[in-house]
C-alpha cells in the first residue's frame, strides 16, 4: 500500500489523491487571487484621483466585474475547497475523499472555466461589464457579445462546486473513523458540511439564472424582458436567492478555520462547541430568508421590507454567539501570537466591524441612503477580506508545516500580517466615509469632494497588494528551505491531523485510527 506519488506532469493530471488535489486547488486560487488583485489595482489606480487618467469607463466596468467574479469564484471558493480536500479526510481519519475520480474532474474543469472567462477581455466588445451581480437587462439586452462565454464559464464553475460539495458531504457522512461521531468532528469539518449543503442548494439556482439569461439572449424567451411579459426584478430575486447563501458559503468555512486556530494558541478547548455547531446551522437556514435585503430599493411591498429587515437582523444573534465563543476561548488563555493567531484575532475584530456595517445596511429605511454607495463596498470588503481572505491566510500559515514539513519564517509572517492589516484598513475604512457622503459604486470618475478618501484607499490597496507578494515569497521560501517542523507543529494543537508525521505522508489513515 506504500506507493508514493507518480512522477512527472501526469501525476498532477491524473491524480486522485486528496492532498495533491488540495494543493492544486490552493495554488490555483492563489493565482486567481493575484489576477483578481491586479484587476482591483487597476480600479484603485484609476480612482487615485478624480477624472479619467488611466482607463476608459468601458474598461473600468469590465475591471469591477472581473475583479468580483474572479475573487468570489476563483480565489475564495477554490481556496476553501482546497483546504477541505487537504484537511477534511485527515481530520476525520479517512484515507481519502469518497469520490477521488470526481475530485480530479471537479478541479481540472476550473482552469478552463477561468481561461474562458479571462479570454472575454480580449474579445470584440470586451468582457463582462455589468458588475459581478450581472443584473438583467444589463447582462442580457445590453450585454457585450462575450456574455455567452461568461455564461458557460459560470456553468462550469457551478458544476465544479456542486461536484466538490457532493464529494465533501459523502466523505464526511460515510468515511469517518470509528468513534468519530458527528458531535466530535472538528468545527472546520462541521462548517464545511453545512457549507456543502448550501452549495448544493444554491449553485443550481445560479446555473438556472444564467441559463435563463442564455435563453433570453439566444432563444427568444423573455424571463427577464418586460416586452415579452417577463420581469427584470425576477432576475434580482433569483440571483440573490443564490447570492445571499453564497456569501455564507464564503464565510462559514472561515468560521471553522478560526475555531481551529484560536483554541490552539489560547491553549484552551473551544468554548461552547455545540453552540458553535447550532449557530452555524442557524446562519445557514436564515441565509435562505434574507435575500431581498439586497433589493430594498426595487419597490418591495412594505410588509416585504419589514420581514426581510427583521430576518436580516436576526442573523446577528447566531453570529454574536460565535464571536462571544471565540472571545471567551481566548479569555484567561495562555495566549501566544504566532502569525496564524494574529490573522485569526484580526478576523474576529474586523469581521465584527463588517457585521456592524451589515446591521446598518439591514435597516430598510436607512438603506435607501446607503444603497449602491461605497458604504456597501466597505461593508462587504470588511466581511470578505479580513473574513474569508484572512482566515485562508491564517489556515495556510497554520497547516503549511503539516503540508510541506517545514516552518515558515515567523518574522516575515508577522511582517506580512502587519502590512496586510494596515493596508486593508487603509483601503476599506475610508470607503465608509466616502460612501456615507454619497459616492456611488462602480464609477470611474467622481466628485472631487471624495478625493482625499479615495487617495487613501488607493495607497492602502497597493500596500495590501505588496503584502500579498511577500506572502507568496514566504510560502515558497518555507517549502524550499524552511526549518523542519515537528509532527505536532504547535504546542497547543489537538486533532487527528497532528498525529501523522510532518510532512503528511502521501497516504494517511489507510487503517482508520481509533477515536475515543
Amino acid at each position, binding site marked *: 500500500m506504500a506507493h508514493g506519488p507518480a512522477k512527472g506532469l501526469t501525476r498532477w493530471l491524473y491524480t486522485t489523491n486528496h492532498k495533491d488535489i488540495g494543493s492544486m486547488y490552493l495554488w490555483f486560487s492563489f493565482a486567481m487571487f493575484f489576477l483578481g488583485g491586479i484587476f482591483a489595482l487597476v480600479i484603485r489606480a484609476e480612482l487615485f484621483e478624480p477624472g479619467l487618467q488611466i482607463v476608459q469607463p468601458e474598461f473600468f466596468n469590465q475591471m469591477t466585474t472581473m475583479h468580483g467574479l474572479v475573487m468570489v469564484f476563483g480565489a475564495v471558493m477554490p481556496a476553501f475547497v482546497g483546504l477541505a480536500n487537504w484537511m477534511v479526510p485527515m481530520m476525520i481519519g479517512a484515507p481519502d475523499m469518497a469520490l477521488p475520480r470526481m475530485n480530479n474532474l471537479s478541479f481540472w474543469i476550473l482552469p478552463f472555466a477561468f481561461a474562458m472567462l479571462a479570454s472575454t477581455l480580449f474579445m470584440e466588445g470586451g468582457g463582462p461589464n455589468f458588475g459581478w451581480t450581472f443584473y438583467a437587462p444589463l447582462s442580457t439586452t445590453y450585454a457585450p457579445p462575450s456574455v455567452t462565454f461568461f455564461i458557460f464559464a459560470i456553468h462550469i464553475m457551478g458544476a465544479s462546486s*456542486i461536484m466538490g460539495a457532493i464529494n465533501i458531504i459523502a466523505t464526511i457522512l460515510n468515511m469517518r473513523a470509528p468513534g468519530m461521531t458527528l458531535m466530535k468532528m472538528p468545527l472546520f469539518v462541521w462548517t464545511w458540511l453545512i457549507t456543502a449543503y448550501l452549495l448544493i442548494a444554491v*449553485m443550481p*439556482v445560479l446555473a*438556472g439564472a444564467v*441559463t435563463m439569461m442564455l435563453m433570453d439572449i439566444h432563444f427568444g424567451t423573455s424571463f427577464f424582458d418586460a*416586452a415579452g411579459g*417577463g420581469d427584470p426584478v425576477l432576475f434580482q*430575486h433569483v440571483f440573490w436567492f443564490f447570492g445571499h447563501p453564497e456569501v455564507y458559503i464564503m464565510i462559514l468555512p472561515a468560521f471553522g478555520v478560526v475555531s481551529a486556530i484560536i483554541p490552539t494558541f489560547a491553549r484552551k478547548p473551544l468554548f461552547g462547541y455545540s453552540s458553535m455547531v447550532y449557530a452555524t446551522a442557524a446562519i445557514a437556514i436564515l441565509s435562505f430568508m434574507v435575500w431581498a435585503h439586497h433589493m430594498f430599493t426595487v419597490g418591495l411591498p412594505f410588509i416585504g421590507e419589514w420581514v426581510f429587515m427583521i430576518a436580516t437582523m436576526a442573523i446577528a444573534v447566531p453570529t454574536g454567539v460565535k464571536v462571544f465563543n471565540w472571545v471567551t476561548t481566548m479569555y484567561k488563555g495562555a495566549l501566544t501570537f504566532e502569525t496564524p493567531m494574529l490573522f485569526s484575532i484580526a478576523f474576529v475584530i474586523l469581521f465584527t466591524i463588517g457585521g456592524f456595517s451589515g446591521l446598518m445596511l439591514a435597516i430598510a429605511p436607512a438603506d435607501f441612503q446607503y444603497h449602491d454607495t461605497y458604504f456597501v463596498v466597505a461593508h462587504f470588503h470588511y466581511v470578505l477580506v479580513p473574513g474569508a481572505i484572512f482566515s485562508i491566510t491564517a489556515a495556510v500559515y497554520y497547516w503549511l508545516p503539516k503540508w510541506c514539513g517545514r516552518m515558515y519564517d515567523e518574522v516575515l509572517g508577522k511582517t506580512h500580517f502587519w502590512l496586510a492589516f494596515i493596508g486593508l484598513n487603509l483601503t476599506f475604512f475610508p470607503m465608509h466615509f466616502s460612501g456615507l457622503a454619497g459616492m456611488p459604486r462602480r464609477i470611474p470618475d467622481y466628485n472631487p469632494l471624495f478625493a482625499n478618501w479615495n487617495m487613501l484607499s488607493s495607497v492602502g490597496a497597493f500596500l495590501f497588494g505588496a503584502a500579498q507578494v511577500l506572502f507568496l515569497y514566504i510560502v515558497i521560501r518555507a517549502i524550499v528551505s524552511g526549518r523542519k517542523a515537528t509532527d505536532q507543529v504547535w504546542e497547543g494543537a489537538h486533532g487527528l491531523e497532528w498525529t501523522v508525521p510532518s510532512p503528511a505522508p502521501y497516504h494517511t489513515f489507510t487503517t482508520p485510527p481509533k477515536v475515543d
Partner: protein
Amino acid sequence: MEKGTRKTVLRLALSAVLMFVAVFTIMPPLYTLLCEVTGLRKVGGAYEAEEIKVDAERWVNVQFVATHNDAMPWEFRPMTYKVKVNPGQKTVIKYFAKNNTDRPMVAQAVPSITPFSAVNYFHKIECFCFNHQPLEGGESAELGLEFVVDQDLPKQVTTITLSYTLFDITEQAKPGLAQLN
C-alpha cells in the same frame, strides 16, 4: 463505491437537479403569483364610474409620461403633460401615437403608476391600454384616456405620475393584424 456513499451521492445529485429545474418551473410563476397577491403588478383594469362627490377643496397633480420599449419605432407621447384635478372629477386626456414604419404594426401600452401608495386610488374608466393598438404604416392616432382620482387618496400624495411604455407586439398579435388588412 461503498453502498452508503452511493446512496448519499445519488440523493445529493438528485437534489441539485431538482433545484435547477425548480428555478425555471417554480420561481417565475411563484414570483408572478406573489406580485398579484401583494398587488405589486396592479395597475388597474376598467373602473365602473360611480356617483362620487367632487372634492373641490383638494387639488392633485397628475403627470403623464411615455416611454418606448427598446426597439419600438413609433412616435408616442402624451398630448397633455400635466393636469390639475379634483378628486372625484372625471378627466379625459389624449396620447398621440404614430407608426413611423411603412408596415402595419400592433402595439400594446403597459401602464405604471407612481407613487405605489396611489395605485389603488387612480381609476381608469376608459383607457387605450385596455386594447391592442393596430396602426397601418405611416398612420397616426389619438388615444384617449378617461380617469378619476379617488377621494380617499392618501393625504400625503400630491402628485401622481402615470407612465405608459409602448411595446411592439406585432409578432404575438398576427391574427389581429390579419383582420386589419
